[in-house]
């Protein structure tokens, strides 16, 4: 019973959902995200949490030992009962990001002074480099 509890507690269930689709879901041992008050790492057994996310890369260390990096453009993190939900209006897996396109967009946004687009492109590039 104790061992079963221990193995169960060693991983948490993660659901990363964007407004129009479920981006990623699975088991993980550690999730690192940036909230408005700083970086936060959630491990199994963390106390219930509800926070506002900053735009930026979110790193998920999966149970199989892999790492999933996702670009999250604003949203929320909520954790309870070993279930972690990351809610984002827009979320992209690092593999889905087109680096050249993001670089071009960053240049264009800088030239036009479009702060929102610049931030989006910057988050994408940071996500790819964090992979």
């Amino acid at each position, binding site marked *: 019973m104790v061992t079963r509890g221990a193995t169960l507690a060693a991983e948490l269930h993660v659901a990363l*959902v964007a407004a129009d689709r479920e981006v990623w879901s699975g088991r993980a041992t550690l999730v690192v995200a940036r909230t408005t008050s700083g970086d936060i790492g959630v491990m199994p057994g963390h*106390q219930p949490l509800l926070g506002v996310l900053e735009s930026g890369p979110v790193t998920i260390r999966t149970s199989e030992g892999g790492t999933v990096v996702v670009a999250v453009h604003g949203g929320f993190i909520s954790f309870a009962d070993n279930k972690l939900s990351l809610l984002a209006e827009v979320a992209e897996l690092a593999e889905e990001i087109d680096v050249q396109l993001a670089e071009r967009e960053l240049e264009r946004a800088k030239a036009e002074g479009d702060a929102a687009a610049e931030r989006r492109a910057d988050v994408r590039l940071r996500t790819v480099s964090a992979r």
Partner: protein
Amino acid sequence: MGAQLRVYKRRIRSVTATKKITKAMEMIAASRVVKAQRKVAASTPYATELTRAVTAVGTGSNTKHPLTTQAETVTRSAVLLLTSDRGLAGAFNSNAIKAAEQLTARLEAEGRQVDTYIVGRRGVAHYNFRERKIADQWTGFTDEPAYADAKKVAGPLIEAIEKDTADGGVDELHIVYTEFVSMMTQQALDAQLLPLRLEEVAEEKPKGEILPLYDFEPSAEDVLDALLPRYVESRIYNALLQSAASKHAATRRAMKSATDNAGELINTLSRLANAARQAEITQEISEIVGGSAALSDATAGSDK
């Protein structure tokens, strides 16, 4: 070929062409309903998680927020009406417009001023034709709404509700949309979106689930501040998707009955054409028989 018969043949040809078109539109609409339904399903996880989070803050803290507190005296309400850009969908648009007009009448009877916001060219055209004021309008995305479109719609509405009523803001926000019940049933209905009644949101979640005591990061107020606009956006997004699915289902049904009617018309016309052809033949025969009889009478007469 007689004139009568030629007219029937021409009409049959034209109705057959129309039938082909309506049949194609029916099949396109049917495939779009399935796609729209899939989009509704894909947006559900986000909506459920968001509802859970809103409930958690609403019940886990005593935070007050302009979006959740009912004004003591409501002087101005906003009504958001969702229609479609294109017609050929039976009573879809007129039902939604009728529901909005009933709601407007009810609110005005309670002594409130009503600002109307409209999505979809059909609704805009209806209001413009009657020279009624539209506070804001959006068109061009009703067939396949994206989340960005819902954001575009929600932005000015949230702004209006956060403004003081004296400065032209509104106290409450109602939404009129067409709920997609099933392929055969779609229902125009109105719902109050804001101020949010947290008790009602709490009722939406599955029974028997106990919410844990959350640690709010950075604070309950800030979380609620960020959460509520997203919640409104996601509700509007859901309403847009349901309206789109309903519109396609209504189009499918309208086109199906158009196709059926065309088929019936073709049957009737072919019968008439057959009768006309038969009458023509009968007439020709009697003309020949009459002619030959007259001829033989004449020759018989000259013999004598």
